């Protein structure tokens, strides 16, 4: 029972990341009809926004400490971040400590901008092209973005730790009456989960309750009709692309403390998130979210010792297996609509 | 007994009754038009005839054999060819290739692994395709990419492709929809010519009364998923029920 709960919990945070990326993918696909293979790269860029903010806050000046020696035996150069000298050591260190949450503020405009540039500069010209072309050009873009990041940040992962306050774990099991250590869960994973829920809720509310959202939803249902009404749907779609990009970026920013970002994290997530979208049903936002969490949880269950001893290697193939089965039995995914990307 | 017999066909989409109790009989070597206002179920009916949809109940018999449960390609192989509302042709292929494919399909069936033979050596097929193009007055366009042609030419090509298969029944789904007057008249002339020159049965779904009354031998009026009347064109014109349901609005 507790093991069960544990794996559901574990699935939730992985699922949160899947759901957020898939949500953005689906927004783009549903509104613009574009299959965006560079979406994983947006997630990665988000994570590197956090890295950049951290680097920026850590910009330092050097003082020479004669009492210590560096590795060559010369006097050690001690680095002090400017932030610490400006705001005092305590507040300065505190600011640096909170660099990941701070990065959210930085990431939103950056990601929206990246989204705009991508849409206006590239994707726009592919609305009328075949899906295969869209896949290919965004695939190329994903490679380019990833290589650019690697050029500046290197190939090794870079730590972007969570604030001290939110480090460590809580014993959820004890709260509900299990024995100690039965269900422990890292605080930041809880934060991530609720953050994801917040973002997902925000996006849905935005689409549901604003006129902007209504138009976009109408556009998702029938683009031409809305265009005929004289509404400038193109501009709204550009904004939607920015929103989707920001969602992916924020997912990335907050993911950093869970696993240190590296340049290929986008590709790692890309294939999975496409599977999520397809399983959820192309173009269905609730489907994407549902499938994200579902696959996250399934993946967790497949990695239990029980599962891997029953079927060796199941943890490696479960996602793909599920995708194949769903696609063959429910051709439109879990919640897909009729007529989306079909003949 | 006609060549195509539709008996008691019902089709629901969710709660919506698209077709209820449709009975229809198309006699051999006639032009049978199916008309009706928007949402009358014309397209649903057509889709039931060609295997795209399967009726909930009822039967569709073609030449004494049921078409239900067969896929579109099987039904085509039984002898029914279909012309779409917007011309469905092979846009990336040349006009000549467009014309050869249906002829191959008639000769070789639904699938044949002729991967080592050369198209250039298929003189029988080539001759036949050239002859149809000649008949369609399109011989000069044979090397064009089909997608680059005008809409009227695409329509002409599509009809030619269907005719090249020498179908027993030709289904036309609003063949002049969205066409300029001149193109419409050309199409009417073409269809008239086909009707006169060949032993062919045609079922046509149409909005344009001009087209219907120029061509049809027999007319079924569909309203709200049910056939209202089936009669000769002259009688339809005068039928008050039809006027009320359909002509009244547009007249």
């Amino acid at each position, binding site marked *: 029972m*507790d*093991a069960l709960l*544990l*794996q559901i*919990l*574990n*699935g939730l*945070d*992985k699922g949160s990341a899947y759901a957020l990326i898939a949500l953005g993918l689906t927004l783009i696909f549903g509104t613009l009809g574009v299959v965006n293979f560079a979406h994983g790269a947006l997630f990665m860029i988000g994570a590197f926004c956090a890295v950049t903010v951290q680097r920026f806050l850590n910009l330092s000046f050097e003082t020479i400490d004669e009492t*210590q020696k*560096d*590795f*060559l035996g010369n006097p*050690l150069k001690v680095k002090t971040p400017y932030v610490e000298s400006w705001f005092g050591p305590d507040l300065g260190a505190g600011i640096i400590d909170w660099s990941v949450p701070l990065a959210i503020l930085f990431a939103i405009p950056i990601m929206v901008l990246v989204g705009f540039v991508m849409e206006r500069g590239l994707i726009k010209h592919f609305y009328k092209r075949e899906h295969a072309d869209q896949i290919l050009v965004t695939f190329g873009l994903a490679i380019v973005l990833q290589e650019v990041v*690697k050029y500046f940040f*290197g*190939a*090794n*992962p*870079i*730590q972007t*730790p969570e604030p001290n306050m939110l*480090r*460590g*774990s809580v014993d959820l099991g004890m709260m509900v009456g299990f024995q100690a*250590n*039965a269900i*422990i*869960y*890292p605080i*930041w*994973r809880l934060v991530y989960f609720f953050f994801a829920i917040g973002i997902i809720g925000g996006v849905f509310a935005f689409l549901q309750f604003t006129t902007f959202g209504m138009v976009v939803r109408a556009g998702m249902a029938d683009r031409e009709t809305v265009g005929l009404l004289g509404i400038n749907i193109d501009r709204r779609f550009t904004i939607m692309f920015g929103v989707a990009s920001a969602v992916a970026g924020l997912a990335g920013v907050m993911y950093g*403390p*869970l*696993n*240190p970002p*590296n340049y*290929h*994290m986008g590709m*790692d*997530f890309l294939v999975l998130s496409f599977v999520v979208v397809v399983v959820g049903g192309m173009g269905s936002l609730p489907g994407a979210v549902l499938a994200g969490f579902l696959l996250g949880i399934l*993946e*967790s269950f497949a*990695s*239990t*010792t029980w599962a*891997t001893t029953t079927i060796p290697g199941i*943890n*490696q193939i479960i996602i793909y297996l599920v995708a194949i089965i769903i696609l063959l039995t429910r051709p439109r995914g879990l919640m897909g609509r009729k007529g989306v990307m079909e003949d | 007994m006609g060549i195509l017999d539709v008996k008691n066909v019902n089709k629901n989409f969710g709660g919506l009754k698209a077709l209820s109790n449709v009975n229809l009989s198309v006699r051999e070597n006639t032009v049978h038009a199916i008309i009706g206002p928007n949402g009358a179920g014309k397209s649903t009916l057509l889709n039931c005839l060609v295997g795209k949809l399967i009726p909930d109940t009822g039967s569709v018999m073609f030449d004494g054999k049921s078409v239900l449960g067969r896929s579109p390609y099987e039904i085509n192989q039984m002898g029914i060819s279909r012309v779409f509302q917007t011309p469905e042709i092979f846009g990336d292929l040349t006009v000549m290739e467009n014309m050869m494919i249906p002829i191959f399909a008639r000769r070789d069936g639904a699938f044949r692994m002729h991967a080592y033979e050369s198209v250039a050596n298929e003189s029988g097929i080539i001759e036949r395709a050239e002859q149809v193009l000649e008949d369609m007055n399109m011989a000069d366009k044979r090397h064009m990419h089909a997608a680059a042609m005008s809409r009227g030419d695409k329509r002409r090509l599509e009809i030619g492709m269907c005719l090249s298969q020498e179908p027993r029944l030709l289904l036309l789904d609003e063949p002049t929809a969205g066409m300029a007057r001149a193109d419409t008249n050309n199409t009417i002339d073409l269809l008239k010519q086909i009707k006169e020159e060949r032993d062919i049965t045609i079922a046509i779904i149409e909005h344009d009364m001009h087209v219907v009354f120029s061509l049809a031998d027999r007319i079924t009026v569909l309203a709200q998923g049910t056939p209202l009347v089936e009669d000769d064109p002259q009688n339809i014109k005068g039928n008050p029920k039809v006027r009320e349901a359909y002509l009244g609005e547009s007249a």
Partner: protein
Amino acid sequence: MSKNDVTRRGVLKTGAIAGAGVALPTIFTASSAAAYMNEPTGGSVTLGFNVPQTGPYADEGADELRAYELAVEHLNGGGDGGMLGTFSSKALKGNGILGKKVEFVTGDTQTKSDAARASAKSMIEKDGAIMITGGSSSGVAIAVQGLCQEAGVIFMAGLTHSNDTTGKDKKANGFRHFFNAYMSGAALAPVLAARYGNDRKAYHLTADYTWGWTQEESIKAATEALGWETVNAVKTPLAATDFSSYIAPVLNSGADVLILNHYGGNMVNSLTNAVQFGLREKMVNGKQFEIVVPLYSRLMAKGAGENVKGILGSTNWHWSLQDEGSKAFVKSFGTKYGFPPSQAAHTVYCQTLLYADACERAGTFNPCGVGQALEGFEFDGLGNGPTLYRADDHQCFKDVLVVRGKENPTSEFDLLEVVEVTPAAQVTYPPDHPMFAGGELGTCNPGA
């Protein structure tokens, strides 16, 4: 030369294609007049540095490349000479190798066996490399070693830690300076027992591929011999990026030590996750819960950041060592590049020097002669104390470092501290040890 049973294949290796009448004169492209593959004829000799330049280990590859360039500089008499001055063998004069100027070509392994073999082949076939060296993973090392054996050039392995490299996949033309999983186990286990006691329950998470398995096997054997119990050993997919679902059940299992048989990105993430789950703050079975990372690398430790603090592991070499060789190397590397070298850099630098020295001592570049000079060679002054290149399996036997993540680093390089230098004798094993059984060294192949 190896005195192992000469197999059918062994006979063929030397006679190679010459014996097959139908075949054209040569295998690969040595011209028929040459005595061996890619015999240098001009005033220079070309070495092939095959390192990961793209892919997840690109940073380690870059560090290896820096060390190679430094070694070439020193061999050609440039710079401050580095470890040439401290090396116990004095055969090298700083005038290249055997009087020929050392040149090099580089290739990108991409950390894929296919790509690594392709780039090695290109360096042999196109650039005339006489020796191939480098790499940052065992799969690649084994694949390239096999190729060099077939081609008839020497392979001086870079960073490869799997037992198989000098175990079941050992080759007469291949040599490994780096330590291996068995040695990690043998060095770590006593330290672990001394610090954490003999009554511990271990839980292994193991990367599901060749290296992971040999490491798990080695550590398990070494710790169990000291009285530890292995509660569970779970394989994790190599492509996994998040290990939470593997870490979460650890506390419930009754284990009080978690051993992470991971490397690279896997290690960074699994360790980060384990710390996140608060494992290190827990008390289990009345003992403090501990995490062990048997194979450490400073570059990876950097990726794991704060999380490595206090965590024990083993490493081949560390820049803070205070012997003359290490100091000389750190000085010349640090002066040239501005930061201290990694263990990968150290091992490939040593390999290059060892190769050059063997050529000098053998008086030839012929792989068979060089191999003979390396086999059973005892040396000192390269940073790991007295070292033996064992003839039976071409594995170096030297001291192994047990290290711990430093609590208060003074700089971004100062991440590990050496807690114990395990003497070579303690990590030495017989050549026929079961973990290394199954392979044949064969006989050397000069390629022509």
